């Protein structure tokens, strides 16, 4: 029995070490190859009949209206608009929050508004944002299942991407809710890619939640170019083309 526990712990330790030391490089390479393959797939298709001349003003206008404000979804489905707005808002918040760990900004940015406010912004608010993120994803997943074979037919990657994102979000939230393993005297550094990607944490998080979170996150990043999450890039390009090209619209 004891040797089984030792073996399991050794295996976990190896996986966890791999997830921090090796997986980031694999993630980088796979993501790069994935994006390159996508671009090659598009480049190998014929261009449009007419040359698309990008209009910077119209592009920005339609990106703001359709990507930032979800204008079309507002017109179509108010519940979905709210879910999309909260989901993308929480994504922005979570990405911004993670930047503190990578020393792109610090708690001092909010200190000007008082210590309590700064504490709220970096410790309390992220927990609520995490819940919003998870709840909206569950809504998307349930909606998809309900509409399946009625109003839409999903492809496997529609579900894989959503489930992967949901699992990594749950792991991330779990990490916040489970008590940390310790509070180091100085910052706890996790070196993914020396000098380039180093995470600085104030507490040592629960090892299991933390490693599950970073493994799933890296799998998710690798999967982006192969999934509908490619819209992180194309979702900006398409409305910019729409704005530049839709000369039919009364302006």
């Amino acid at each position, binding site marked *: 029995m004891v040797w089984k526990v030792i073996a399991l712990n050794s295996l976990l330790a190896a996986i966890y070490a791999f997830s921090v030391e090796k997986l980031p490089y694999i993630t980088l390479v796979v993501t790069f190859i994935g994006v390159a393959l996508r671009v090659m797939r*598009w480049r190998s298709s014929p261009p449009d*009949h007419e040359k698309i001349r990008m209009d910077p003003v119209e592009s920005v206008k339609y990106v703001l209206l359709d990507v930032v404000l979800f204008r*079309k979804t507002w017109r*179509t489905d108010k519940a979905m608009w709210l879910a999309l707005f909260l989901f993308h808002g929480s994504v922005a918040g979570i990405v911004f929050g993670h930047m503190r760990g990578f020393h792109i900004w610090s708690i001092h940015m909010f200190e000007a508004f008082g210590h309590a406010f700064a504490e709220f912004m970096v410790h309390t608010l992220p927990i609520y944002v995490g819940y919003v993120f998870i709840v909206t994803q569950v809504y998307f997943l349930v909606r998809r299942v309900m509409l399946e074979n009625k109003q839409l037919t999903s492809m496997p990657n529609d579900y894989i991407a959503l489930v992967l994102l949901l699992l990594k979000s749950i792991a991330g939230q779990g990490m916040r809710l489970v008590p940390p393993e310790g509070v180091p005297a100085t910052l706890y550094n996790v070196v993914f890619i020396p000098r380039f990607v180093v995470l600085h944490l104030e507490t040592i998080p629960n090892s299991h939640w933390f490693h599950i979170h970073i493994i799933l996150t890296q799998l998710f990043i690798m999967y982006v170019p192969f999934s*509908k999450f490619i*819209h992180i890039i194309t979702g900006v*390009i*398409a409305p910019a083309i729409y704005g530049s090209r839709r000369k039919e619209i*009364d302006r």
Partner: protein
Amino acid sequence: MTAELNKKAKASLGKFTRRQVMELDTCAHCALCTENCPAYNESKDPLHAPGVRSAMAVKLYDKKYNFLTKLFGKTEITEKDVEELSESAYHCTLCGRCMESCPFGFQTHELWSRIREIVADLGGTPINVARLGKMLDENMNPYGLDPDERLDWVDYTDLHEIPEEEQAEVAYFVGCTTAFKGANHDVAFSIASILNEVKEDWTVLGEDEWCCGNPSLISGDEHTAMEYALHNVEALESRGVKKVITGCAGCYRVFRFEYPKLLGREPKFEILHAVEYLRDVLVSGRLKVEPTDEKVIYHDPCELSRLGGVIEAPREALKYLTKEPLEFDENGIDVRCCGGGGLLQAVNNEMRLDIVTRRLTEAKEKGADILVSACPACKLAFTDGVRERGIEIEVLDLLELAAKRLGVL
């Protein structure tokens, strides 16, 4: 057979442009477009949902162009695949409403036309639509009627003669659905009468007018559309025409937005829809009419409003024609299609009538006495709906209403 189909499929699917492949790759099948789709709303058949069509197209594309599918998936395209794609592609009015619901702004009306082109390449075009292509080849119109009958509408109206000039400032491009369909002859008469009333230096092309190419374009035959574009533009330019007026929303859209693409240059004349011309002559005072007391509701033709950008002109004109203009809830760029577009009539007339019934019912509920539009296909759909479904409302083209107020119709 299957090997040949697959060879053709690879070449044909390769016609998706890089923008369209990007759109297909990005479409998350979120179904936000579905509730707004007039065809899906009537049938509730998933095959008719725009997002499902997009999923079907990308699956077929991946079978030929995705290395992962080539390695691990099924790569064979079957006749059943083509049948389903055809069923989906032709149960669509090409109204473009899915484009206006799509969060990413995919230009779906172009995507669906491309899918129809692929369906045509793979021999899946519905028989009635294929027949239409043959009639176009033989008679330069989709109704299979002799080109010399193009001006028959003149004989059926009080207009005894109309100008067929060698040179003119303005040309009236009648369009096949107006010229050959009896229900629309009064529309042609109204436009001709208004041009005479304003004393415009105008002409028609007569037998020299060919189909604008819209039916060819939307059934996937770009080559024929290009041939027609070349002919019509040459016929108009050789007459020194500076302004072309058409009462057909389809002709208008194709002249304005498709001809430059097909020809690789802008024609040397301005294209106006008759409602824009009507607005101009009413606002400038060149045409004077008394407005009616009847309540008039305006239906935006999809090809004129959402796909053509002409939204305010008919409303401005209507202010001179009625004291009580009414609006549908879904209007302008967000208009709900009447069912008259996309060759749906040739494939599923019952669905077309179901779609138009919804619109007619709403017009009645709004308390309208007259329902006006600005497209011969819309007028045909509405008059068929009134006749077949027994909904009592007067249906007119906006130009007919103007001619009535002028006292010539």
